[in-house]
């Protein structure tokens, strides 16, 4: 038995921290870390709801697995884009305008 308030609070904290990271950071890789935190908040909510509802399809857990896979693909493409950006500009500072 578990109180649902604890996982839900952690979801809110993770999403808030991720949003702060996306807005406050200037380095592209650090922005990516913020995006990962938001994705993990969504994942934790999916797993929590999947664990506590009597769903015969196990949607919560299966969708959490899907989100993890899509996040892996996203990070691969993002790494390639960041490297192309670095080769083009010599830095990955997102606050500076492109040429």
């Amino acid at each position, binding site marked *: *038995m*578990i*109180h*649902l*308030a*604890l996982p*839900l609070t952690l*979801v*809110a*904290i*993770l*999403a*808030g*921290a*991720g*949003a*702060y*990271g996306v*807005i*406050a950071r*200037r*380095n*592209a*890789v*650090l922005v*990516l*870390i913020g995006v*990962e*935190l938001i994705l*993990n908040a969504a*994942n*934790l909510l999916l*797993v929590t709801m*999947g*664990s*506590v509802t009597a*769903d*015969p*399809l*196990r949607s919560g*857990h*299966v969708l959490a*697995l*899907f989100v*993890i*896979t*899509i*996040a892996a*693909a996203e*990070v*691969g*493409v993002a*790494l390639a*884009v*960041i*490297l*192309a950006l670095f*080769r*083009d500009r010599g830095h990955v500072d997102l*606050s500076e305008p492109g040429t």
Partner: protein
Amino acid sequence: MTTLDVLFAAIGLIAAASAVLAVTTRHLVHAALWLVVTLGTLAGCYLVLGAELVALVQLLVYVGAVVVLVLFALMLTRAPIGPSPEHTSGPVQRAAAAVAGAGVAGLLGAVLLTALGGRLVSTREGRTHGVAEQLFGTWVWPFELLSLLLLVALIAAFAVSRMPSATGPEVTSPERRADEAVEVP
């Protein structure tokens, strides 16, 4: 307070603290390492919630692969070792970001806690056998589609990283501006 409550509170406290540190630290590499702590403790949270398969996949894919990719990105973009305040925005944008982050956390927490917060529930739905049966039964076509997505992402990553790089802004910018001018109308 039940046993699972105490366990989840202990692990979740570490996860929340390391998540906040990951977005506020001034060391670039430390941010990635705090992300490792966050993702690992989140796998512990999934274990407490009874989702063993998701916890193991989280450890394998996130801690094993995603963080290594992030560290590679830091290394290949010549991230400096040591504190580097120029990677965070100025105080005004940081304050705005703090307001936005607190707003997101407060709004999400308020909605979720008022909707579902008071419930005391048992976590008996996450057995691996049932999840595997559904994953390879009901969800098998989306699952196969995901492998196609991974393939496409891999090829796209190759294509993007092998794109001809600009030799200089004055050489490429006229072409680029011409392309944009063609595409805009």
